């Protein structure tokens, strides 16, 4: 612990000028077109929404401690879970990795100065904030009770609350998503440094590319679905109204055409993050790079063809169920490829257990469970029994929270030195990573069982026999909440008191680590030239170099 303490008055000669010091006024932040600063702006906004969604989750878990409805009213409970779903899906999980890590890292990883359309990038943040304000208005005005799914005719004719404002907020947020997606696609196509061919792209960039395709093609369909809901509720146009011969199932088709791919919007970026973490801390080239790329591309296409597995009990034709069931099984294959390839990247590696690696290992475990339970839901007879129960709740939280949020935290730790130039306290970080894994498993595993036993979701009071599982889940949620808050505390602490990280504390190979940390406003002093593929942690076809200095020793950050 002999590092120099942070001195904000240190002259710039000591530390190279960084994007953080390029301007200190609020105005310099709010009018910036630097992708790195915009990523920071997004991070602040997302943290706020994560808190709001988390508070709603806490209310839900508290209410469910007992079978009776005692803490909240039925209406209050419905509003809490709707709020939790809407905020967490559209204001946290869907944007999470693309707008923060993606925004920050994609130009750095491909050797570009900035995103292709920097002003569009800033505009998309403002649109996102406008949507956020509308969402905040919805909450302050009392919320909605439709569930995040906005099913008709509940949402159009029967639900109380500000459905128009909530749907409007999600609608507006969609523009921000699409703008980010267009920007990422154009950036990856047009801004790659000389020599950065498609098959030299880091898998994180591939994750961003494939997710952007999904965002651009899926989000508008949701936007239209919500617009039609608003037209029916607000203007009285009978779009889905069964009384006039409308078909509520058509809304579900539209909704899930977006909302199933939305799961891939959350998980494809995580695939990218985990590939970076695993290779760096196993000091190993990724096993089967090309297959990893094809798997992501396959998911981003076939992921669009499986939405009907949300509708097996909806009254959809059973032949359509069969088709969707088949396609859902097909989409499981690339996910399996990814898990096996990460696992085999460990083989003959040089494995270190820094905090980001612990998050990555946790991710692989939780994602495997989440993915496998997806097979249950793809089987029509089993799905009929467990859909709309806690089994489904557990399944999608395993993917979207155990998976995507673990990956987000892992990526945040990994690139924290890049973003801030600081190191966080390693011991605390490892503790938080392990706690997050067990807290998560503790919270959501009981839900699989009670779902299978028949506990329906969105119930605020329930038969007493399910109480034991709810108590377990609520107790786990307490641990989990702590595991989510802890990193926020020490990461914030590290901004002021964390040790200087140096340019490349992990001795990682990505292009983003070849510039200073934090990077200068235009990313690279000279335009990088790329001559080889990613993950050169050891010469091709051999193991890692044993003579290499231990990165951890060099940093001297043993706990």
């Amino acid at each position, binding site marked *: 612990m002999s590092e120099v303490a942070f001195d904000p008055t240190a002259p710039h000669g000591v530390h190279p000028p960084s994007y953080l010091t390029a301007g200190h006024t609020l105005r310099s932040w709010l009018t910036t077109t630097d992708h790195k600063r915009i990523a920071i702006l997004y991070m602040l906004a997302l943290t706020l929404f994560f808190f709001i969604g988390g508070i709603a989750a806490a209310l839900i878990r508290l209410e469910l401690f007992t079978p009776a409805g005692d803490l909240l009213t039925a209406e209050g409970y419905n509003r809490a879970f709707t709020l939790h779903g809407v905020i967490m899906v559209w204001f946290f999980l869907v944007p999470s990795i693309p707008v923060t890590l993606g925004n920050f890292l994609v130009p750095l990883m491909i050797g570009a100065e900035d995103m292709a359309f920097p002003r569009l990038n800033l505009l998309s943040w403002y649109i996102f904030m406008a949507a956020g304000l509308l969402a905040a208005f919805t909450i302050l005005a009392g919320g909605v009770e439709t569930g995040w799914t906005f099913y008709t005719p509940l949402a159009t004719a029967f639900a109380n609350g500000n459905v128009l404002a909530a749907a409007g907020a999600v609608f507006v947020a969609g523009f921000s998503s699409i703008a980010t997606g267009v920007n990422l696609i154009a950036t990856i*196509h*047009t801004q790659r440094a000389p020599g950065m061919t498609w098959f030299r792209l880091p898998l994180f960039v591939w994750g961003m590319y494939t997710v952007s395709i999904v965002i651009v*093609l899926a989000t508008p*369909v949701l936007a239209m679905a919500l617009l039609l809901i608003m037209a029916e509720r607000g203007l009285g146009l009978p779009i889905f109204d069964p009384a006039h011969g409308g078909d509520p*199932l*058509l809304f579900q*088709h539209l909704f899930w*055409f977006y909302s199933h791919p939305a799961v891939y919007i959350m998980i494809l970026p995580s695939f990218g993050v985990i590939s970076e973490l695993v290779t760096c801390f196993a000091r190993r080239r990724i096993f089967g790079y090309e297959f990893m790329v094809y798997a992501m591309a396959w998911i981003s296409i076939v992921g*669009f*063809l499986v*939405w*009907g597995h949300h*509708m097996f009990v909806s009254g*959809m*034709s*059973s*032949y*359509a169920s069969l*088709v*969707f069931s088949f396609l859902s099984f097909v989409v499981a294959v690339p996910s399996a490829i990814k898990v096996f390839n990460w696992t085999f990247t460990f083989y003959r590696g040089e494995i270190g257990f820094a905090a980001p690696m612990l998050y990555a290992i946790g991710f692989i475990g939780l994602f495997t469970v989440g993915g496998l339970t997806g097979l249950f839901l793809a089987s029509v007879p089993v799905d009929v029994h467990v859909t709309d129960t806690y089994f489904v709740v557990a399944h999608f939280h395993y993917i979207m929270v155990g998976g995507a949020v673990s990956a987000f935290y892992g990526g945040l730790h990994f690139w924290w030195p890049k973003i801030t130039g600081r190191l966080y306290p390693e011991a605390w970080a490892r503790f938080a990573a392990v706690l997050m894994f067990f807290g998560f498993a503790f919270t959501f595993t009981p839900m699989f069982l009670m779902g299978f036993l028949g506990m329906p979701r969105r119930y605020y009071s329930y038969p007493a026999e399910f109480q034991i599982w709810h108590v377990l889940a609520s107790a786990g949620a307490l641990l989990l909440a702590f595991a989510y808050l802890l990193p926020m505390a020490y990461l914030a602490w590290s901004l002021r008191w964390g040790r200087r990280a140096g340019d490349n504390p992990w001795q990682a190979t990505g292009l983003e680590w070849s510039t200073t940390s934090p990077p200068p406003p235009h990313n690279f002093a000279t335009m990088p030239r790329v001559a080889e593929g990613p993950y050169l942690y050891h010469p091709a076809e051999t193991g890692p170099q044993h003579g290499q200095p231990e990165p951890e020793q060099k940093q001297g950050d043993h706990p």
Partner: protein
Amino acid sequence: MTALRQPGPASAGVLWRRTVPVWLVLLGLLGLTLALAYQPLGRLAGPVALGIAALKAMVVALWFMQLRRPDPLLRLAASVSLVWVAFLFALTLSDLLTRTAVQVRS
């Protein structure tokens, strides 16, 4: 992205001569679809009208939107959404067209 765009025309006359025929074709197609709408085509009326619309769309895309330029990336971006539209329609139809009515005895 290596394709070069066509060298621009030097005068307004060349430009008009290149675009006005396209416009005339479009107006012709409009007249045709309007006339056909009043013919007793029966079940074919819908497909014929939509076919003419697709033709018009193709003319606009190729000439006005300059998709004739040999830029494969732009063509890919322009056509990919059509594949996804096909996904949306085909799989929804797989439900709608195979639904069976519930028999009620009483």
